[in-house]
């Protein structure tokens, strides 16, 4: 199947769909049944059969797992210094645990898929309604969908329960627009609206192969009637009902399936959920490769040296240490290779399998702190944050770009009437209480002085206009979804429903101002006025809203027979058509409101004479009946009708921002993040929200890159224009900063729409696309905020991708609440879903889900910051402690004839990473808090301290590695000099029975190991800034555990072991005074440089973080008494 790219205009490949699988009448066309996939949705990764091989393959694709597998196999095959169990067991454990986890997750996905695939759909077969499971639906089936049902696949609308062949649909879960959209049945099939009639329909549909663009569809329907030539009608996107959308306000529809299963536009808009890897994991892998190189070179150096050293046969095989016959006969190359592998095995602990286990555990356990966080719990929804992928915890601390959806994410998706202005007089309904009217709150607050009698007339006309000029319907049911408001307090059975939430808000606002719209009955609109009288207006024409005109009109006949044309629309489309009225006052008010971030509409009217009305009817009729270019002709007709208005006033509606949305965005800005708003909504609304949420400020200069502008000028010029503006500013800015006058700098906000974006991204004929993209990115980089409106879901993902792969490779975060955000959530480095009104699609596909936008602040500034510093330390420390661990072993090879003799006992080799040093770092990486949570929240700029993966830079990594090497050298040569000079040959007369004990190689190793364990643990203790009782318990506990284990390990002749080399070694060592002195000395020397470095850096070049830490400490000292008092009081309450 060919897939077409977005924006491709040509109808490259087509499919023919036979409605109801009925052949067309013979002779017209050859009947070629085509094969299409069934309606099954598959999101799971594995099947029962391929799970084991596929999962194993995927796991061993991870470089570390593969490495451990190789080490394990080497240990199995050749004679190595350590037993294969030491690496095989942990590997097996890791692989099994991961496989179980992934298997479980996939099982859940299977379950979800099954639920979707098995939900029932109604299909018309042979004139009867048949229930089928969704996944059995095939292309060509006629489907019956009832109100509030979701379409099971992409359908062509044939007929509806309405006579005019229209139906209302909400595509909220697809593109985020919660408004109801009108779709049209094919004119020639709309009469087929019973099962029997449909059975007689013979038609074929030719359409393009599926493509992801939601708003584009090209097709043709051929209807075969008896004897006649088939009628061909064009099909457009207004005929297509998309999977995922929901039928509203229409009893039922009949439609025919054209795209099913994974070919639906919704499925094509989903991207496969690829494994996301965090920046930390990437650096970790880079470090890993460095260590792999170190390991290989160590092994290589030792192998070469071994053979150089062994060139003398008396060294290779002295009389006291002969080889076996088989060893002697082995070829020298094989021996060398085996030696190389043996060295590899000996040093392989430098990359410990336990690091991966610890990192996984840290991520898994650490993510619980997000779900446990009470501040991120929303009482309204009754849910807290959710973690779907714990792999990305630390990425939350690295975010540079935030892409946010608007509707439902920044805003509540909840309109509120704020005020209206009639002839410059402002009316504010008081007692606004979240959509509910308080009893007795019908009064009007007049800000201005009361208008005169002439004003009074205008005022009432204005209110009536708003009560009449809309497409609101009254619904008498309680259980309707979508926008619903109770009309009658107490009854609670009637709601206003409209395709636009603004209209509902306006009609409701009018109700609060005394004019209640009751219903549309027999083409008469009924209004309850202030005097509780019912006024009836006959609805004559509705000139529907469209986004080009940006206004709508109604023509009504009042009870007294006067003909009115009421029009409401955006200020820019009303003012040019006004001939009288108090334009200046209204305009001032409108501008004031727009700055406040309110959505404004202007209302105007004109009185029509009967003749005028006749003309209008004529005009509309001809336009509506036109077969070609109907839209264009209608637009012309509307344009001719809607002119010469008298301005009445303006309204202001607020799409309420989510709680603390502006504050959150401000904090994110301060933390150095760039916030982009990507929305499917129209530009004006989106821009208003951006102002309200402080994304754009009053001082922000807005750069527009929209279709409107590119129509006037070509794209090339616009782009260069904008970049010149921005760059000039940039140039002067740098000069200003030099002269210290940077306060006055202009910040820019960019607005771009979907169509223009497509043009920017589209590869040009002459291949200059890269150029456009670069200029666009350059402009974006210099803008503090960007607003992208009219975005298709996949375009959102494209934007994210564009930024993600721009040359700085910034970390991106996408946040949204609807299914239309899913693709960008999947594309961004971190995807966050908001558990909103528009279903759970986003939350399900996201990496993290939060109840409200404001929780993003704590998520990033606190949790992200903590996770990042924790995991950064974890990674660095792990490499450090294994350098400390393995480097002495490397040095020892120089003193044992390069014979791969391990320095430490097997038990120590195995347990070092598993138990002696694992828990303190794991705990650190779970609960470390270098700065208090509240300070992190209060001071977002601290987030900049860890930006760009700053704690895992190569410089810091090299510092840690060198520190490790230094410590290792101290351990080894410290012990070496003590042994070499024979202090340890005896321990004096303290214990008479052991007066002259000799220390062997195992004692040497144990001494080094003891110093090692203590140093490494204490180093972590020095790095810990947050000592809870658990830290004390774990750090001192693991040191104690080491001592107890060593005593036990050396205290018994272990019956199951074939060697007893550790017997009493540890105890003998501890009974020697110099050993104690040596241990203390070596630990001190090893820790000294790091402490000095830390103290010096803090004193001389402190980072912001360190400054705040120090400052806090000073304050603490001053306030210690107060602190102590509060401490005691709180401890009493324990």
């Amino acid at each position, binding site marked *: 199947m060919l897939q077409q790219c977005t924006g491709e205009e040509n109808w490259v490949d087509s499919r023919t769909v036979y409605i109801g699988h009925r052949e067309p009448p013979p002779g017209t066309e050859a009947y070629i049944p085509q094969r299409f996939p069934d309606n099954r949705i598959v999101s799971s990764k594995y099947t029962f059969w391929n799970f084991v091989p596929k999962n194993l393959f995927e796991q061993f694709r991870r470089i570390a797992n593969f490495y451990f597998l190789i080490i394990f196999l080497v240990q199995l095959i050749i004679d190595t210094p350590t037993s294969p169990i030491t690496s095989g067991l942990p590997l097996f454990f890791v692989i099994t645990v991961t496989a179980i986890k992934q298997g479980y997750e996939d099982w859940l996905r299977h379950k979800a898929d099954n639920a979707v695939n098995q939900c029932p759909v109604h299909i018309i077969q042979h004139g009867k309604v048949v229930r089928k499971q969704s996944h059995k639906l095939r292309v060509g089936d006629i489907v019956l969908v009832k109100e509030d049902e979701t379409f099971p696949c992409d359908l062509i609308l044939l007929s509806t329960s309405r006579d005019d062949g229209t139906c209302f649909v909400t595509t909220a879960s697809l593109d985020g627009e919660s408004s109801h959209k009108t779709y049209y049945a094919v004119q020639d099939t709309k009469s087929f609206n019973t099962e029997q009639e449909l059975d007689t329909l013979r038609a074929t549909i030719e359409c393009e192969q599926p493509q992801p663009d939601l708003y584009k569809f090209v097709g043709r329907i051929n209807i075969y009637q008896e004897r006649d030539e088939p009628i061909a009608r064009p099909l457009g996107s207004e005929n297509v009902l998309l999977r995922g959308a929901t039928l509203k306000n229409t009893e039922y529809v009949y439609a025919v399936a054209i795209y099913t299963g994974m070919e639906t536009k919704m499925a094509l808009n989903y991207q496969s959920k690829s494994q996301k890897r965090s920046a930390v994991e990437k650096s970790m892998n880079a470090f890993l490769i460095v260590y792999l190189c170190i390991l290989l070179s160590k092994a290589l150096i030792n192998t070469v040296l071994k053979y150089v050293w062994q060139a003398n046969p008396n060294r290779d095989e002295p009389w006291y240490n002969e080889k076996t016959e088989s060893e002697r006969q082995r070829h020298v190359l094989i021996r060398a290779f085996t030696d190389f592998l043996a060295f590899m095995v000996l040093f392989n602990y430098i990359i410990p399998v336990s690091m991966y286990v610890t990192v996984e555990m840290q991520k898994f356990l650490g993510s619980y702190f997000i779900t446990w966080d009470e501040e991120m719990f929303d009482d309204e929804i009754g849910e807290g944050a959710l973690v779907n992928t714990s792999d990305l915890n630390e990425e939350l601390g690295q975010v540079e770009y935030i892409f946010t959806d608007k509707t439902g994410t920044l805003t509540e998706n909840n309109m509120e009437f704020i005020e209206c202005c009639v002839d410059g007089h402002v009316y504010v309904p008081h007692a606004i209480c979240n959509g509910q009217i308080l009893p007795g709150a019908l009064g009007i607050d007049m800000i201005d002085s009361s208008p005169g009698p002439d004003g009074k007339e205008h005022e009432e006309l204005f209110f009536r206009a708003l009560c009449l000029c809309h497409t609101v319907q009254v619904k008498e049911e309680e259980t309707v979804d979508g926008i619903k408001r109770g009309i009658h307090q107490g009854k609670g059975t009637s709601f206003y429903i409209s395709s636009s939430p603004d209209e509902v808000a306006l009609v409701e606002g009018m109700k609060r101002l005394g004019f209640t719209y009751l219903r549309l009955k027999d083409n008469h609109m009924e209004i309850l006025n202030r005097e509780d009288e019912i006024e009836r207006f006959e609805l004559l024409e509705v000139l529907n809203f469209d986004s080009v005109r940006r206004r709508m009109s109604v023509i009504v006949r009042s009870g007294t027979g006067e003909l009115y044309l009421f029009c409401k629309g955006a200020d820019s489309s009303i003012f040019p058509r006004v001939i009288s009225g108090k334009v200046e006052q209204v305009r001032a008010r409108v501008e004031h409101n727009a700055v406040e971030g309110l959505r404004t509409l202007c209302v105007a009217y004109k009185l029509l004479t009967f003749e005028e009305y006749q003309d209008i009817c004529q005009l509309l009729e001809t336009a509506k009946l036109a077969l070609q270019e109907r839209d264009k002709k209608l637009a012309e007709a509307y344009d001719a009708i809607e002119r010469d208005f008298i301005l009445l006033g303006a309204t202001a509606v607020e799409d309420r921002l989510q709680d603390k949305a502006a504050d959150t965005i401000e904090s994110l800005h301060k933390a150095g993040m760039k916030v982009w708003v990507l929305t499917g909504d129209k530009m004006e609304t989106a821009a208003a929200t951006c102002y309200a949420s402080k994304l754009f400020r009053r001082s922000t200069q807005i750069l527009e890159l929209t279709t409107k502008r590119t129509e006037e000028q070509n794209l090339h010029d616009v782009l260069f224009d904008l970049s010149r503006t921005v760059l000039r500013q940039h140039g002067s800015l740098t000069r200003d900063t030099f002269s210290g006058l940077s306060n006055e700098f202009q910040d820019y906000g960019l607005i771009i729409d979907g169509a223009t974006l497509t043009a920017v991204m589209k590869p040009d004929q002459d291949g200059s696309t890269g150029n456009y993209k670069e200029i666009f990115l350059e402009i974006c980089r210099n803008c503090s905020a960007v607003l992208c409106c009219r975005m298709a879901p996949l375009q959102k993902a494209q934007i994210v991708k564009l930024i993600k792969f721009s040359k700085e490779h910034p970390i991106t975060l996408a946040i949204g609440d609807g299914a239309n955000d899913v693709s960008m959530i999947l594309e961004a480095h971190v995807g966050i879903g908001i558990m909103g009104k528009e279903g759970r699609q986003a939350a399900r596909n996201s990496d993290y889900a939060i109840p409200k936008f404001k929780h993003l602040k704590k998520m990033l500034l606190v949790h992200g910051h903590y996770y990042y510093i924790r995991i950064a330390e974890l990674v660095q420390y792990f490499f450090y402690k294994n350098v400390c661990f393995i480097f002495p072993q490397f040095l020892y090879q120089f003193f044992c004839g390069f014979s791969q003799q391990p320095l430490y006992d097997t038990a120590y080799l195995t347990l070092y990473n598993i138990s002696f040093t694992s828990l303190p770092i794991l705990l650190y990486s779970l609960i470390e808090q270098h700065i208090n949570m509240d300070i992190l929240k209060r001071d977002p700029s601290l987030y900049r301290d860890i930006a760009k993966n700053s704690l895992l830079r190569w410089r810091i990594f090299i510092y840690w590695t060198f520190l490790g090497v230094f410590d290792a050298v101290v351990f080894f040569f410290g012990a070496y000099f003590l042994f070499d000079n024979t202090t340890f040959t005896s321990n*004096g007369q303290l214990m008479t029975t*052991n007066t002259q004990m000799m220390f*062997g190689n195992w004692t040497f190793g144990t001494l080094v190991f003891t110093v090692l364990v203590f140093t490494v643990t204490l180093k972590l203790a020095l790095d810990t800034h947050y000592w809870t*009782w*658990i830290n004390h318990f774990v750090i001192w506990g693991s040191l104690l555990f080491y001592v107890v284990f060593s005593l036990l390990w050396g205290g018994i002749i272990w019956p199951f072991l074939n060697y007893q080399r550790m017997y009493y070694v540890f105890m003998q060592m501890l009974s020697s005074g110099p050993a104690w002195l040596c241990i203390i000395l070596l630990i001190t020397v090893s820790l000294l440089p790091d402490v000095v470095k830390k*103290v*010096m850096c803090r004193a001389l070049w402190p980072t912001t973080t360190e400054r705040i830490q120090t*400052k806090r400490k000073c304050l603490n000292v001053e306030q210690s008494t107060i602190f102590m008092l509060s401490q005691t009081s709180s401890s009493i309450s324990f």
Partner: protein
Amino acid sequence: MMASSYNAKEEDGHHSVSAASGPSAGPSAKSKKPDNTAFKQQRLPAWQPILTAGTVLPAFFIIGLIFIPIGIGLFVTSNNIREFEVDYTGVDASSPCFTCSQTYSWNSSIPCKCAVSFSLEQPFESNVFMYYGLSNFYQNHRRYVKSRDDSQLNGDKASLRNPSKECEPYRSHDNKPIAPCGAIANSLFNDTLELFYIDPNGTRTQIPLVKKGIAWWTDKHVKFRNPGGNNFNLTVVFQGTTKPVNWRKYVYELDTDPENNGFVNEDFIVWMRTAALPTFRKLYRIIQKKSNMTPTLPRGNYTLDVTYNYPVRSFEGRKRMILSTISWMGGKNPFLGIAYITVGSVCFFLGVVLLIIHHKYGNRNNSADIPN
């Protein structure tokens, strides 16, 4: 105690939740809401130390003040220890053991003897420990280290008949299992050293050398055991095994004293503890102080009589005999003392540097920050 206080706190947290949400909050709402415990909210009470110049300063001075005296003490002690070392390998043609070192053969029945004379400038007062030292001898070679069977040495009869594979190629000889098997046992140091004091008037007095109590107590009594216990007739017990290839005698002929024969022979046990480094010394004998009046080894001339059995020339090794007294800190080792003094001084110096930094920058930072 800590745990209990934590639990109490947790309960307290629960309490406050219910208090905050009030009785109206149903049980279902409560179950989904995360617990307000200090742990889950990451608000455990904690000590938050920060390493600043101010806090670290005292530690540096204290370390300096403690380490320097310790170092001086160690250094002085080490210097008071008498140690004497003599190399009897016989590398030079002029050295007395030259011939012996040249005419080496494992199978020669007549042992080669040589005598090395030396003189002690100062008397050795307390107990003197006599060591043999080997150089360039890789007792820590992996092939060598693992070439032993601990269960055989522990008296296990099955292992006696069928030693571990690790002992190859010193596992069996003439189809008989070797006891003790392995390279370590096979290469047991078998020079005999005897010490004579030459009176100023020329008489040779043999100095009594104690050969017991030179191994770890636990090794001698637990880790190493003869098969069937020490009371058995060792000749019978070791029936069916053969001696290591390089040995002249069977393992049950190492000593006449049954407490020091077979696997529990102390010279053997000392040898079996493989050295960490290629140059090492092992305890050979102890010269016990007889009375308080006379030094253990008075100053004067001595002769070391060597029965030269052990070949080291093939791998360019050296053999030495060392006499040393010991102190509370063991043998002579100036390194530890010097290291302590150095580290102590460095800490002290750093303390001073930090003090300067603290005064110069610490105040500046704080004053610059607080207005922010």
